[in-house]
């Protein structure tokens, strides 16, 4: 009975606030809780952009639960209170590796799409400056290079997430695609996207046209525009691409990057720009770099300045407990005594601060190990001695102490 009680208690804790109105009302008191996104909505809002880890979790648990955390709440508060006649404000989410920057961005994206904004979500800008198989010389500007594959992939995903907007927004200019094809003025933007998808050669130019149109029309107020870029430091870094004569390519020589940089300037109004810095996937940056100036460099900082930096820290004890409880509830962490009062109390006694995704990775691995050895009872238990009112389960202690990257501090 005790376990059942704790189950229901925990379920109530991370109850899903999937109701539309409730989600908009996420406030400080909801901090640490997990809210649910229905799966069909997930595929509509996030054709791309969710971290790989989270996607695996969604597949495993058959539900998408996002934790409400302070940085996201702060950002949502800024967005709610922003003046859309003023130039777009740039927000830069930064933090150490594995702390939840991309998840924060996804939370904001989900909120904005729920609120009816047009979301321009670039899942990882690093993908545009490395590992590009095809580079074509741009027909629009001889000095620039096109990336047809990346552009077409992005256009496909963009179309999937913003169908109705593409129908409503009309072009304001006539665009010529090569010698014969053109898009007339006043046609829905959908045709531009179709053109880009059909003729892959002009996909990059289609992206450029799209961005230009959205930028020019956003101030009218018929829609709100959110530009969400993950790994924005890629735009001002170096690239590993090379031209045919083996000379290195600067990012500004790429059409996609050039147009995106223009989008990130604050010379338009009627929306917001939310970006994330990312060292994982970055090129020629040391793994210890995480602050804005380190990752953006001088050029990037000058381009984005003035921006609002939003730091994302590791899990707080409360958030950790919530996540741990969620995993227990979903029976992801499986050992008999770990679910009882002793388990949680033991964790509080330890007072651990854990990195979110890194910890989850290790926990999963250890859990699979544990499951295979469960019958054999041959689970290796490193000794962590705790003087609690209840003897802390050795398995859990073994799990946690060998998982967490930092030394556990016993707080009495």
């Amino acid at each position: 009975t005790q376990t059942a009680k704790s189950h229901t208690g925990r379920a109530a804790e991370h109850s899903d606030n999937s109701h539309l109105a409730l989600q908009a009302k996420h406030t400080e008191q909801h901090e640490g809780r997990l809210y649910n996104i229905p799966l069909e909505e997930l595929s509509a809002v996030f054709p791309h952009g969710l971290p790989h880890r989270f996607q695996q979790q969604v597949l495993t648990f058959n539900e998408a639960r996002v934790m409400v955390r302070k940085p996201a709440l702060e950002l949502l508060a800024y967005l709610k209170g922003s003046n859309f006649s003023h130039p777009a404000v740039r927000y830069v989410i930064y933090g150490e590796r594995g702390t939840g920057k991309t998840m924060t961005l996804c939370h904001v994206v989900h909120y904005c799409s729920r609120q009816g904004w047009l979301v321009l979500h670039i899942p990882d800008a690093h993908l545009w400056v490395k590992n590009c198989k095809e580079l074509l010389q741009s027909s629009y500007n001889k000095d620039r290079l096109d990336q047809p594959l990346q552009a077409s992939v992005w256009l496909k995903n963009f179309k999937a997430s913003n169908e109705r907007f593409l129908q409503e927004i009309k072009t304001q200019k006539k665009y010529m695609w090569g010698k014969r094809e053109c898009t007339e003025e006043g046609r829905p933007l959908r045709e531009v996207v179709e053109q880009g998808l059909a003729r892959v050669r002009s996909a990059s130019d289609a992206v450029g046209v799209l961005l230009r149109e959205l930028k020019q029309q956003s101030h009218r107020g018929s829609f709100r525009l959110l530009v969400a870029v993950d790994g924005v430091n890629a735009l001002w870094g170096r690239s590993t691409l090379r031209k045919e004569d083996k000379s290195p390519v600067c990012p500004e020589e790429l059409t996609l990057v050039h147009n995106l940089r223009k989008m990130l300037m604050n010379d338009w109004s009627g929306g917001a720009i939310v970006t994330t810095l990312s060292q994982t996937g970055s090129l020629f940056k040391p793994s210890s770099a995480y602050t804005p100036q380190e990752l953006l460099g001088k050029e990037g900082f000058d381009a984005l300045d003035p921006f609002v930096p939003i730091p994302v820290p590791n899990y707080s004890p409360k958030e950790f407990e919530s996540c741990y409880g969620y995993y227990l509830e979903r029976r992801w962490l499986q050992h008999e005594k770990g679910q009882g009062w002793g388990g949680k109390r033991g964790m509080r006694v330890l007072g651990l601060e854990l990195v979110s995704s890194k910890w989850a990775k290790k926990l999963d691995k250890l859990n699979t190990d544990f499951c295979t050895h469960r019958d054999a009872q041959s689970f290796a238990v490193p000794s962590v001695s705790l003087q609690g009112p209840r003897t802390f389960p050795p398995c859990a202690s073994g799990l946690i102490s060998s998982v967490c990257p930092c030394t556990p501090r016993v707080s009495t």
Partner: protein
Amino acid sequence: MVTAPRLPELQECLENSLRDAQGGIVGVSVQAQQRSGQSPGCSEQSRPCGVQRGRSGRVRPAGPGPCRPPSRRAGPWAERGGAGMAARAGRCCRAGLSCGALLSPALLSPAVLSRAPATPRWGRAAFSSAPAVSGREGPQAREGSVRRRGRTLQFVRSAAPPRTERMAVDQDWSSVYPTAAAFKPASVPLPIRMGYPVKGGVPPPKEGNLELIKIPNFLHLTPPAIKKHCAALKDFCTEWPSALDSDEKCEQHFPIEIETVDYVSSGTSIRNPKARVVTLRVKLSSLNLDDHAKKKLIKLVGERYCQETDVLTITTDRCPLRRQNYDYSMHLLTVLYHESWKTEKWESEKSEEDMEEYVWENSHSQKNALDTLLRIKASENVSNVTKEELLASEVVKNYRNSVIALKNEGETESNISQYKESVKKLLNIQA
């Protein structure tokens, strides 16, 4: 039966064999007087070199004699003992082997060995008394060859008590170690141990400890010894001026410090090429430099300037004499000072990369901020706002300070949060 008169050689041979047969000192000493004349000669010949000699030192006739010494009497132990001792005592004369005395085991007893140190002193003359012959030498002695030094007896000196036992507690230490000297365990009355300890044991003691001898020691520089040095040098010194009683006053009146080194060595020459090096140190705050001049001087000298201590260090050694190097360093300082005050035409091309620290005026940050503010004002339909007004406003000043701090001091949590607050105020963002 009357013995026939013998040939002198035969007689000699018989006497030798008699001596051998007796195998003792007693038998040998009889012959000592006769042989004494020979022994020194032999010893002189055989002393220089320890290898087996030829038959030069031998007086005895060659050829096996009729009577063989009972060389087999002394066993292999005698040989070995004899050989070992021979190796140790270099001065043992092989001429003594002419005695051909056998070394019996009794003679090799420790009692005899302890007496041995006394022997080399008069071993030359009466070496015959030294039982230096091993069993094997008997037949060889008979043959008349010189022994190897390795076969002679070695004499171990008995150890005298160390000097430390006779040292008073209040002795004058500077007479024990007046100059730099190696560590002598018998002269240092300290129970020092040094070295890697044996497993489960302690570091080795100081006796025969190479580690202690290898390292430099300062036993010759104890405070009383240094006091004595100072007292001796005092006669050659002049008084320190009483007005310069603090470092700041010295700094103020004598801002330039010249450092030279004199070298003394034990040798025939007093010259040392290292003595020509001159180091000049001066604080830039004591020079009359304005902002531009200071920056230019720092760029000119490069690594010779230390940011933390504000000290310029010029080291000169390109001239052969110290005075010349000193003049050169003063000349360098003068030239640097005057050149840094001049402004060249091309200095106006100084770009942002050349700047030593971040300057907000005319930077991208200022441009962006002003553009953003102008756009905000335009959207609110507020016109007639000039750039100067915007620059003078509080929010822009705040923003400027935070950006300068961020760029110059690097990124810290406090810097970034300060920047965040200033941007929020600038763009009027409300939570």
